[in-house]
């Protein structure tokens, strides 16, 4: 079989991940629920991962995929820690709305 990108084109993957990424950003900005914000971040991460894989195929090189592995590991760790933090915030404040997190005020 030939290269799959001959039929789809790398541009389309780029567009797809851009859109996905922007949706993630939009979610981060739009929602105040910390969990949803977290989900948006995951979407953004996945958009990047997708691009990595697409280019990995494009270059016929495994390194992009290896990177995605690490990125997944980091994402997993991040989600675990992040959610733990959210839980303890929820315990303390009774809310996970990011508007209530004003302790960073200078």
């Amino acid at each position: 079989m030939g290269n799959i990108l001959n039929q789809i084109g790398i541009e389309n993957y780029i567009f797809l991940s851009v859109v996905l990424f922007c949706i993630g950003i939009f979610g981060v900005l739009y929602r105040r629920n910390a969990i949803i914000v977290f989900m948006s971040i995951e979407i953004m991460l996945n958009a990047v991962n997708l691009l990595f894989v697409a280019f990995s195929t494009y270059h016929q090189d495994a390194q992009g995929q290896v990177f995605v592995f690490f990125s997944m590991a980091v994402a997993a760790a991040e989600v675990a820690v992040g959610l733990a933090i959210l839980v303890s915030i929820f315990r303390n404040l009774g809310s996970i709305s990011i508007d209530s997190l004003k302790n960073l005020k200078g």
Partner: protein
Amino acid sequence: MDTNLALILVLTPLLGFLVNVFFGKSLGKTVSGAIGTIAVAISFVVSLLLFNQITSTGKGIQVTLFDWIQISNLKINLGFLLDQLSVLWLLFVTGIGSLIHLYSISYMHDDENMHKFFAYLNLFIFFMITLVIGSNLLVLFIGWEGVGLCSYLLIGFWHKNQNYNDAAKKAFIMNRIGDLGLLIGMFIIGSMFSTLDYATLQTAVAGASDLNSPLLSLAALCLFIGACGKSAQIPLYTWLPDAMAGPTPVSALIHAATMVTAGIFMVTRLNFVFDAAHDVQNVIAIIGGITSLVAATIGLVQTDIKKVLAYSTVSQLGLMFLALGFGAYEVAVFHVITHAFFKACLFLGSGSVIHGLHGEQDMRKMGGLRKAMPITFWTMLISSLAISGVPFFSGFFSKDEILMTAFHHNISLYVVGSIASIMTAFYMFRLMFLTFFKEFRGTEEQKHHLHESGSLITIPLIILAILATFGGLISLPGNSWLNEYLAPLFSKAAGEEHHLGTTEYTLMGVAVLGGILGILIAYIKYFKQDNVPESDENITGLSKVLYNKYYVDEAYDAVFVQPINSLSKFFRDYIETGLSALVFGLGKVTNEIAFQGKKLQSGSIGLYLFVFVLGMCAIISYIFLAQ
């Protein structure tokens, strides 16, 4: 040998000063006075030796001690030049100085700081000698400022009185204005001729191609400003009358006989420069004439005995500058010498009167002192006759020569000078009549204590009176020893000899008549009609203007002193605070930015994210779109 003599000449007064400063108090009054007097007397003796040497050889002595200041195109030595002019000056400075020291032993005997007085007097003599014998302008400048300093110290000798201190300060600052002129003059001369040494300067000026250049004129003008300050000429004369705050011997020595003639000395010394700048000579003559007239008019109505003498001094100095302006240097020098004699005598006489009256200086409270103080009276009378130009006294010859020179050059200045002379005769005899004739107008207690002063006071008076009488002999018209003596100094033949023709005799007659007229008016007004000047409040009209010295002091105060003071206040209160606020403002702005920046950290995560995204957009577009 010459070096040693010169050093003895200079250093003896300095030694006297040092001894009196460090040990004066423990030595006792008489001893410290004696030390002071002897120190000056030694200088006088040395001066006589030098004079002897100069007259026999006819050549000046140049002594170089060591390099002083190095400037690229100038090398200034600390050196002395002893020639005809400086030795002549030395003679009367140390001579009169010795007499006045002698006089002061008695006069200042009641003062607790007498040793200091003698220390200052000796210091003055030291600086005056330095001024006179310096071999270049900068050494002259040491003496020039040094005598100013001594004048400051001595005017403010009674330092508890702030008015006296004000007068002292005023004298110093006025002198410094002149000194700036002198300095600038020196700078110009230095850059033009690359020397400040008199001898080299003379050859350089003589060899200069473009005489009468504006730069040289400017230099001469600046030097003349210096002379104005020191010799109390318009516009810098106002310090001299105020300087009468000092003890009377000081007025006699510094403010009549010696220091104030330094300006004339300097101009005479640099005669070759002034000869090359005719415009400036005219300025000098005009200023001299005006000063003599203005000062004489003020002198007409003064009631303080020393103030009268002070204005008389200013007026006489004006006459000397009149002569200088016409290039008749030897005539001016002649008048300096005779004036030193009779004015010193007058001041010392007035000092004797004041001493006798325990500090009273107002002539309205004197009178009838003739009987109580005969020696003082006769010596002062002789000096008054001399200053008024009565024939065969010294002042007659010198003043007559000045007027004659003026007549030959400029009639209007001659008229001005003559009027000033008539006025001089008038106010001097006004002084005599008010002080010595009629009845005593002071308190009973003063009358009771009236007595002639001691011999230490009267001996100098007598000597000076004799000199005032016969001093004119050194330069008789037509047969002048002085002119011949000074001839080597001047480029042109020493003074165009006055052919004693009809004109000259007429002029002499006119001068004599004028003098006698002045005396007569004074006689009628103050002896016959028995007038006594009115008390201060009752003075009106023109006399009020004159009595208040044309309000010149007030004008200076309003035009110079007050603006500078308000400027200073303005600078201090507004500019300084403004600049300070500007600097602090920089700090405040930083602070404010930080404070506002702190507010940006609201803690709102939404806002942070929003800004983060915007920033990311900006960065990405910069990286990818800017190219």
